[in-house]
């Protein structure tokens, strides 16, 4: 999967550009590199439903973020304990990556997943639910309560947005 590694490196570069650019609008557009790259990566990983959803969500995300952007980033300042804080941040992020190297060795290697639960879905899904798309059959049949809970979270977030953004009722 060499093309997948190139794609993830591309996404990392887009993320770094998004974080370090001075112009806020360019920064928001550069997040789109990461998001659309993720959509392509889902396509490589044989998840077409996710690729479509990610494409739509990425574009909506861009629209929402552009609503909030101003023209310029804040000026670069090294006031306070800037060097100390940055050094500590890099040390801890480096330690995180270093330790994750040992943890990732314990995972099943790439391309050979543990499929104890999914074997049942793969073998019985079509007979039990009559759905040819197994992702749909899991969302709406086997794991319908999970989906209900996630829909609750979604609508709670939407109510939060409406409560924060609306103008009526404010002094």
């Amino acid at each position, binding site marked *: 999967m060499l093309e997948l590694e190139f794609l993830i*490196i591309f996404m990392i570069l887009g993320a770094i550009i998004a974080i370090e650019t001075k112009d806020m609008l360019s*920064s928001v557009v550069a997040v789109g590199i990461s998001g659309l790259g993720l959509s392509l990566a889902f396509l490589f990983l*044989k998840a077409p439903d996710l690729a479509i959803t990610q494409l739509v969500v990425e574009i909506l995300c861009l629209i929402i973020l552009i609503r909030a952007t101003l023209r310029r980033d804040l000026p670069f300042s090294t006031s306070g304990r800037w060097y100390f804080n940055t050094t500590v941040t890099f040390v801890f992020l480096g330690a995180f*990556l270093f330790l994750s190297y040992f943890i990732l060795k314990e995972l099943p290697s790439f391309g050979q997943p543990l*499929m104890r639960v*999914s074997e049942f879905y793969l073998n019985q899904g079509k007979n039990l639910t009559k759905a040819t798309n197994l992702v749909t059959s899991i969302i709406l049949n086997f794991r319908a309560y999970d989906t209900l809970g996630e829909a609750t979270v*979604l609508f709670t977030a939407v109510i*939060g947005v409406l409560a924060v953004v609306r103008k009526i009722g404010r002094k």
Partner: protein
Amino acid sequence: MRVYFLCFILFVVGLYAILRKRNLIKIIIGTIICEYAVNLFLILIAYRKDGRAPIYSPGQEVKNMVDPLPQALVLTSIVIGLAVTALLVGLAIRIYEKYKTFDITKINQLKG
């Protein structure tokens, strides 16, 4: 293994933005990047070598499909991520209207 590690690097880039940026919009961008990395990691775990998409079609054997369970759970996670991003941006816009800045070091009056 190398792919997992690259995915972790993407996560760390987002974490750096959350920890060290002063602009609220940059912090929101960092959370978005972290979310992308976590979704990608879950789907990477589900991949099976030379697998097919988990959709039945005539003349396809069942043995080599990728794992459909993480895909189903990540599908809703992506949509929830959008709603959470909208909530964060709404809060950021309110903060801008009150303080006239996105600088988190200037936002220090906790009293309403």
